[in-house]
């Protein structure tokens, strides 16, 4: 039997238009290529 309260907790509010700016700015855009860049830069620094 489903627990109503527990299931209800899984629902989070949708983001409204007035919060769009925050939603865009707070998005973490780090990707694997950024990590690769960081690793390569560290490596090059160590070599030089």
């Amino acid at each position, binding site marked *: *039997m*489903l627990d*109503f309260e527990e*299931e*209800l907790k*899984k*629902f989070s*509010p*949708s*983001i*409204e*238009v*007035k*919060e*769009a700016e925050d*939603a*865009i700015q707070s*998005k973490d*855009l*780090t*990707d*694997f*290529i*950024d990590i*690769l*860049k960081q690793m*390569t*830069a560290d490596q*090059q620094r160590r070599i030089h």
Partner: protein
Amino acid sequence: MLECFMCGTPADHSDTLCRYCGANLDTYRMILDASDRAYNAGLAKAKCRDLSGAIADLFKALRFNKRNTKARNLLGLVYMEIGETVLALREWVISKNFDDTPDNLAQGYLAQIQNDSRLLERMDLDTRKFNAALDYSKQGNLDLARIQLKRLIQTAPKMVRAHQLLALIYIHDGKYLEARKELHAAARVDIYNSQTAAYLAEVRQQLDGQKGEKKRKIRKREPLVMDFTDGHDTVRMPRQTFIEALDNSKSGILNILLGAALGVLICMFLVVPQVRQTANGDAAQALVNANNKAASSESDVASLKATVKKLKKRLSNYEGKADIKQSYEMLAAAADLYAAEDLDGAAGKLKGINTDLLEKNGKSLYKKIGKAVEQKRMEDSYAEGERNLSGRAYQGAIDAFTEVVKLDENYEDGMALYHLAEAYVGYGNKEKAKECYEKVVQKWPWTEKGRNARKWLADYAQDLAQREGN
């Protein structure tokens, strides 16, 4: 052509390392390939309406390569499909930020929304309705939540979470058939959503359980005859149901009384609560309606007020001024008069022109003529001022030089200002003269007029000091 991720140097397919900075291009290629594979998987799932699966794959694609524009744009589309408007906008704005070329589809999507202001408002209203319904649910006002969600589903039938939340409320209330209907609607939008599947499993289980109960009840039958002992005898008689016993009864009055009592009980326990529930439901509906109306009319009023303010501001630019056609006609006339060296006539025409309505070339011509007219005015006024000053018509000199100085204080290298001071002295207004001489000293301290002005100021100060001493 691949570019090095560190320095941007173009690289061939066969290059393992960048020729310029030595960065590992094989790893970079692997990451790009992984991103593209995840995008392809997401695209395939989106086409089959497995939107949750598509979102997961597209997320992965962007985790590998955030600049995978196709993945980001598709993610936005999927979000829009399930009713998450702001998440869709977020992805498209970020996509546009990374790739500002006209080919980027995100430009078109954003333009569509920007061009239709009511569309964004409607979407935002749907989001707010969902959030309100969720709040009601968490506060325990399930009736209000149910009403809000039903209305939301009418305007946003593809909002998966709205269907799921409504289904959850139905499950809580034991209305499994209604819950199943909502979950099927959610599944039509997003086929393999795990939450929908979990709720459907629960509903099926409950419905199967209910069917089993009914079957068990039907199987349990009483025997048709019953035995009872009467002394030493065992009597077998057919079992009568209660209804049959009543029918066989000789007492009709008993039947009537029984019927009346039953009627009263039915009224008390079935009809009255139902009426009360309907009344409550109506009241709840009215409250939800009022809330929604207030919310949407509030935003309507606010946006109307903003529009009126904008229009009033624009209108004020046009009040008392010529329209476009008139403005250009006057500009053309002013240009003709300017060419004919009738600058006074040109000045007259320029006065009536509404410069806000002129385009770039029109404004440039207006400025050119305006400058020439101003120059002429200053020349004429300066000459008149000099005539009046030498003829000791000091008021006339003051008027003429004031007009020049108003347009250009530095006219004739400050001589207009200097002569104005002289005119004030001749007129007897030494305070005004002092102001003008002070400016001359400030701007042209080492010229002859500057020295003269300084001397006058010193003499004036001495006079004042002497008078105060006396």
